[in-house]
Structure formats: C-alpha cells, structure tokens
C-alpha cells in the first residue's frame, strides 16, 4: 500500500502529514519541537524512516534533530546524556565551524556586507538538509552564512566542504534580504560526485568532484539590480530543481526570471514566457513528466504575495515558456500569502502529487498533477518548508 508523508517545517515547529495513496484524507502530527523555527526536514532516499531536521532559534542557536522511525520520535544525534564520572561528551551535532585550517581551508575570512564592507563569516543556521541518495548516514547541510557542510555519521558531527567558499569569489558574495543562505543542494543521481548549490545572493555553483572544488554556473543569468547584470556572482537565485532522470536539465526560479539549462548549468536561457510575473521563490518538476514544471508567481520583490490576490500555481508542460494557470481549489480573491523557496515538493505516485505551504499556514495538495487543489491544513504557523516522501 503506497502512501505519502509530508514533512512540514514552520516558524513554530514541525508537522508530519500522512495519507494513503489516494491522498484525500490526511493525518496531522505535531508540533514537534514546538516553539522553534524548523527551517527544513528531509528524509533519506535510502531509508525513508531516517529523517533529518534543522531546528533553530534566535535564542538558542542551531540544533540538528534526527528521527529513525519516520518522524514519530526524535533525538539530537550524539547529544544524549553521558553518564558516569569522566564521561566525555560526544555531542557535536549542533557544531558548525567554518574550516580555516591551512591544509584545507582557504584563507577566506570575510564576505561583502550590504554596505559594501567586508564582514567575517558567522554561522547562523541550517537552511537546507540534503540526505545522500544511497547512504542514510550521509547528509549535506546548506547554511547561513553561506557554506556547505557534510555529515557522514548520521548528523553526529559536521565538516565544511571549504572549496565552495574558497573557490575565489567568496569575498564578493553578499546577503540577500533573508540573509546569505545556501538554500539549495542537488545531488546528480547518475553521478553522485556532481553537486549543485544555490546561494542568495551569490548565485549557483557546481562541483564535479564530490564537493572538493566548485565553479559558478551563471552564464545566461541577467540581474539588472547588479552593477554588471551578467556578473559571474551576485545573482539572487531562489531555487533550482531537476528531474532525476535528466540531471543535466535544471530549472531555476531567480529573484526575477524563470530559467532553464540543458547542460548542467553551463548555460541558462530564460523560459518565463507568458507568466504574469516571473518573480517567485519555488520551482519544482513533476516526478513523472520531466518537462512539466511548476512555479508560483509572486507579484514583485517589494510585494511578496500573489498577483491580484489570486493564488495561482503555473504549470508548463513544455519545459518552460508556455505556462497555464492552475486555480481549481485555490483562493482566487483576497489571498496575500507567500510561498517560500523550500515550501514546494512533489511525490512520485501516478498521478503526481504536488504540495506547497504558505506563510499563512496553509498546506495545499494536488493529487492530479496540479489540476485540482485542496488544503490539507489551513492554520499552521507560517510554513518554511515542505518535503514529500513517497512510501511504498
């Protein structure tokens, strides 16, 4: 019996939503970690019951939580009670320390700030967790200030992959309005040594050697808010998505513009086409149709809500350029929520389930490729992230 589990991160806790394959009736469990900001949760493709969660707080900092039973119970890995005199603590699961070692860390200590001055890198939180495709104990963490970390022991300890910050352009990176966050990590399923990351507001990067070295992949991006609109770095990339069967085809929702690359990011072309506005945060690809793409257009960078108060998902079945509005079941008046960059996901059932959460606390679901929608829940705290797990 197939089913779907949605992992929902919110401003005030995590929720786990489950349904059978029909995806009509949902059970809502939570809040887990009540009162904490849960930026992201994601399950291991190799073991769906292994789920990692980023729990953060302006007061208490970063905590990494892990569940080994599908989200029913949680623990901070390596953070258990030590007993007996002299029992040394082993908990390093919350420790994210930038690599400044002379052996592997480049002498990179500052990045550009809003005012043009250089500021030191300071760890703030984990925005995104991306588990390995084949090892439940391996997981990447995209963090603010922007860097990529990896754990190979189930989240007990973390080590930076310093080649990303140190590849040369780091001093020119600067924060987007939400902070200088590494929010997207994609693993090429055909070549796990190929990784993609995206950073606001530095751009997009690719590694072909397991994260040791990186290069910007921004050719074709045009950002008029930059002094040089086609600069190598500085683009505010909001999200990148790919279909597992075509890892060289990437879709990007940039600050403004929806783009596509068919050569693993070496070249991009705009595919905004007939979208009513091409500002937005989320983008995702139908699990069964690699050329079917979803975005949620947002009015503008100064008005973060749907155009005309109508919540519309746009779907392209041509890989971009030609878009159709999906409105059935979505509010078409007086709707002024936002959909944040990690808050859309798809399942891999037939037909594809599409899900997104809003800053108004709704989680909407479609079990038919986006043709019709219904809210699963309406009144959660503001939703930061949604991840769908297909359970078979």
């Amino acid at each position, binding site marked *: 019996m197939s089913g779907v589990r949605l992992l929902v991160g919110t401003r005030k806790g995590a929720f786990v939503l489950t349904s059978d394959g029909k995806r009509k009736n949902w059970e809502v469990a939570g809040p887990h970690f009540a009162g904490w900001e849960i930026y992201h949760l994601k399950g291991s493709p190799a073991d769906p019951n292994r789920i990692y969660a980023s729990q953060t*707080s*302006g*007061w208490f900092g970063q905590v990494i939580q892990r569940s080994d039973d599908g989200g029913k119970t949680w623990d*901070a890995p*390596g*953070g258990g009670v030590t007993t007996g005199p002299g029992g040394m*603590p082993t908990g*390093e699961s*919350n420790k994210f320390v930038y690599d400044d070692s002379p052996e592997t860390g480049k002498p990179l200590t500052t990045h550009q700030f809003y005012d043009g001055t250089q500021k030191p890198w300071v760890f703030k939180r984990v925005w995104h967790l991306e588990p390995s495709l084949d090892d439940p104990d391996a997981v990447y963490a995209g963090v603010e200030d922007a860097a990529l970390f990896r754990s190979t022991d189930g989240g007990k300890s973390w080590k930076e992959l310093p080649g990303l910050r140190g590849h040369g352009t780091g001093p020119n990176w600067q924060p987007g309005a939400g902070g200088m966050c590494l929010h997207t990590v994609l693993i090429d399923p055909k070549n796990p040594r190929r990784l993609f990351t995206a950073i606001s507001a530095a751009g997009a990067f690719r590694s072909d050697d397991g994260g040791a070295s990186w290069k910007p992949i921004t050719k074709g991006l045009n950002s008029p808010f930059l002094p040089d609109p086609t600069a190598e770095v500085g683009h505010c990339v909001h999200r990148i998505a790919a279909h597992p069967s075509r890892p060289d085809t990437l879709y990007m929702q940039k600050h403004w513009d929806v783009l596509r690359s068919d050569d693993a990011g070496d070249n991009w072309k705009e595919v905004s086409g007939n979208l009513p506005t091409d500002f937005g945060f989320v983008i995702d690809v139908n699990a069964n149709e690699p050329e079917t793409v979803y975005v949620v257009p947002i009015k503008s960078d100064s008005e973060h809500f749907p155009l005309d108060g109508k919540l519309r998902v746009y779907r392209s079945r041509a890989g971009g350029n030609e878009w159709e509005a999906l409105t059935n079941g979505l509010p078409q008046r007086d709707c002024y929520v936002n959909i944040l960059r990690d808050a859309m996901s798809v399942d891999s059932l037939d037909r594809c389930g599409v899900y997104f959460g809003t800053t108004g606390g709704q989680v909407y679901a479609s079990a038919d490729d986006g043709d019709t929608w219904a809210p699963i829940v309406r009144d959660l705290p503001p939703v930061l992230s949604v991840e769908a797990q297909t359970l078979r």
Partner: protein
Amino acid sequence: MIRVELPPHLRTLAKVRGEVQLDVPPPVTPRSVLDALEARYPALRGTIRDHVTRERRAFIRFFACSQDLSHDSPDTPLPAPVAQGTEPFIVLGAIAGG
C-alpha cells in the same frame, strides 16, 4: 550540588524536568557550571554558549540571587548560596521576539 534552572526549550532539548542538579568542584563559576552542564547534557552544547568562542549567546541571560550576572566574567565566583546549593543558577532566554 549546584542547582541550575533552564528555560523550557532547553529542558525539552535536554530531556529533563525541573531543575538540574550538578556536582561542580570549586571554584563554582558560570564557566565551571556550564562546563558541567554541557558535559552531562551534550545536546545543550552550543545553545547557551558559542561552540568555539564559549561566549554567552546574545539572548541568553544568567541570573542568581536576584542579580543579573550576564556581563560578569565567566570566571567570577558565583554567590555563596549558589555554590552551597540553596539558590539556583538561572539560565534565562531573554524576553524578545514573537
């Protein structure tokens, strides 16, 4: 035994109820109390003090015996009632935010 009072979120994280009691050899200071606390509850490492600098996080306060000790040196001896276990060392989340 030294008594430590934690804010609710950190009690949840440490999986404890009520006050924590710690055996801390003298001198009893904020540093020695927090070292003992983190050794016993590693999940709290990084939540009260920075992992690397060991500095108090900005929105954490330390109170004891009706005094705000947050800005004292971490090596300043705590008041005698705390060292004697008659008063708790209070770790507090500042009132801020929504």
